[in-house]
């Protein structure tokens, strides 16, 4: 089975989940898991494929969320248009941040810190600009109906999110077999060597930023429409940044299915820990953290590495 076939089969199976899962709670857990997979994969495009570790991906998430919210609340723009613009602005801001950082040759931990700082700058801006609700945040009016990108039925939110996630995974599948993807891997593995063979590392990294920002922006739009309330801390705080990179690292960075695996395992672990020790506040988080440390220690390449075929040892030629 090809990777595309496998991907489509997995997502076709995921599309059936709301028809099988009748529990609102478990469907909600599935929504949260898919959401993690989406932001994990968005981070994976930049961190796993292009090798640029970002600690501030909440920036693009927040831009998407605030775009759909502000357009709706302040200008009465339909959220479906906000969906498109949220993704586009997420990508645009990502390109702008990339342009400002990569042109000065920032890499590694410096790039990570700068992305963290940009997210913080946007949090402070959102805190200060009255048009964006300032510190009070923004509340989207409850108007359930597909026309307003709000649904009474959780299954519809699930399918909307599934469509976004599938688009993101298809983009990564395409990267795996495209020239752009190959260039990203070259930049990730050795930027100087890649430049030496004619790869425009700056342009490649900007394209990775754009693609990653686009899907984080879409995730932000989804969050805003699902919970109908945003404040600067929720949108630009560290929570989404940490979740995005955690899912990708646990699942396996630079792999197509890694973020999905990471999201499933992390949410299953979280729910199991909560079910076992929910009555003892904080204990579930201790268990969760311990297992996480063990996983990173013993599976440094993530869960996806369990499914990778090891290269067969080459038989030495007969003497």
């Amino acid at each position: 089975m090809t990777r595309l076939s496998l991907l489509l089969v997995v997502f076709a199976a995921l599309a059936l989940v709301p028809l099988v899962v009748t529990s609102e709670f478990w469907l909600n857990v599935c929504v949260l898991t898919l959401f993690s997979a989406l932001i994990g994969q968005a981070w994976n495009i930049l961190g796993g494929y292009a090798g640029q570790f970002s600690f501030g991906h909440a920036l693009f998430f927040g831009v998407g969320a605030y775009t759909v919210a502000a357009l709706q609340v302040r200008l009465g723009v339909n959220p479906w248009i906000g969906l498109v613009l949220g993704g586009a602005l997420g990508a645009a801001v990502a390109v702008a941040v990339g342009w400002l950082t990569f042109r000065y040759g920032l890499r590694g931990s410096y790039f990570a810190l700068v992305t963290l700082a940009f997210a913080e700058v946007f949090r402070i801006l959102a805190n200060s600009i009255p048009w964006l609700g300032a510190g009070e945040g923004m509340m989207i009016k409850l108007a359930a109906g597909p026309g307003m990108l709000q649904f009474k039925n959780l299954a519809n939110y699930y399918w909307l999110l599934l469509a976004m996630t599938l688009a993101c995974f298809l983009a990564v599948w395409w990267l795996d077999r495209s020239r752009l993807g190959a260039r990203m891997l070259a930049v990730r593995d050795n930027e100087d060597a890649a430049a030496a063979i004619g790869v425009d590392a700056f342009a490649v990294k900007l394209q990775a930023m754009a693609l990653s920002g686009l899907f984080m922006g879409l995730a932000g739009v989804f969050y805003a429409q699902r919970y109908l309330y945003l404040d600067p801390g929720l949108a630009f705080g560290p929570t989404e940044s940490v979740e995005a990179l955690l899912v990708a690292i646990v699942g396996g960075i630079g792999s197509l299915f890694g973020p999905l695996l990471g999201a499933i395992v992390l949410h299953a672990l979280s729910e199991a820990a909560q079910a076992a020790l929910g009555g003892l506040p904080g204990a579930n988080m201790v268990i969760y953290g311990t297992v996480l440390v063990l996983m990173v220690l013993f599976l440094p390449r993530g869960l996806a590495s369990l499914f990778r075929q090891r290269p067969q040892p080459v038989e030495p030629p007969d003497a």
Partner: protein
Amino acid sequence: MTRALKGGLDRRTFLAGTAAITGALAAPGLLRAAPAPVKIGLIHPVTGALSYSGAQCRAGGQMAIDDINAAGGITSLGGAQIEAILGDSLSKPDVGASETAKAVEAGAAGIVAGYASAITLATAQEAAKTNTPHIVDVGVTDGIIALGLKNVFRFSPGYGKIAQDAVTALDEINKAAGAPAKTVVIVHEDSAFGTGTAKLLATELPKHGFEILKVIAHPTPTRDFTNIALQVKAANPDIIIPANYYNEYVLFARTIQQQQIKPKAIYSVLGGAASSYKFVKEFPEAAEGVMDTNHWFNPLSPLAQARKAATEAKGLFYTYEVYLTYNAVALLADAIERAGSTDKDKVIAALNSSTWDKHGMPYGPTQFVNGQNTGAQAVNTQVLGGKIEVIRPAEFASAKVKFPLA
């Protein structure tokens, strides 16, 4: 050797048969004595950034359940005991919604949630999907009620009313003392709570003749207030209004003391520490004289005093989280009691017609309009002689206001 009874029954068989028949006859009575428990979901942020407040909320809710059960449970349901379904929102709205769905599916007749406004917005909307009665324990943003959800009820006052009452109270306290205070500096944290407070006060206070000299924002956390205190000192206001969370409030109040800034009043709206026993106990000098407009119990109510004593006996402070969640659970239980059912429509109807008054709060009987208890109000407190006293409204006051301080 077993001695046989007349008719061929031996003693052992006779005793076993008698026990079985007695048990069978008693069984319906036993079943009647143990009706199905009534489940209530308590969804609070017991881990994460809001864990202290969430744990206090949970403690208050569980105390209410214990008291109701000890008093015979829901009598209209044959003495059904209340059972808590505990949910941890991890201080995140999306998890709060998920935990609400979980509690509803586990059979919760009602939900009490969610401490923070952002979390409450999510839990309320989730509960609305199944028309499950949802009592807001603490969330103050008026957006919760503005959602217009038929299943959502808030026992405590909303932010708009608290802030308006705070402005009116400050004006009246000032005028009663001959209007010695004319200038104000507002120091606020820069998220929803602090920004909203500052905006409202900066708009409303000038209408009452106060001049706003400075509005200073700071992030949370802030660990050094020296520069801010120096700015305040330079402005030399008559009244300082801090609007920030507990740690920042304490640090700011201590810095004001260190810098020997002596305003005529330190006056807060939902002050993070201004009505906190912990603050008063640990920093009595910094706390002395501080005024606040906040949730508070009725100090003249024996019921409130008894609950306060019971809370303190457990080693907990009787904070607003405890008594507001206690009352939210008790209010829901009262509605189930009067409805005589856990049918959601009937419980919601019972809440809409609620005139419950066993809350020990300065509210009067409950009266809900569009989900808001219209009788709910904040009161003014002041730290006097190391104690938190209610100074306003007069009918609930335990002490007289001390103003101006300097």
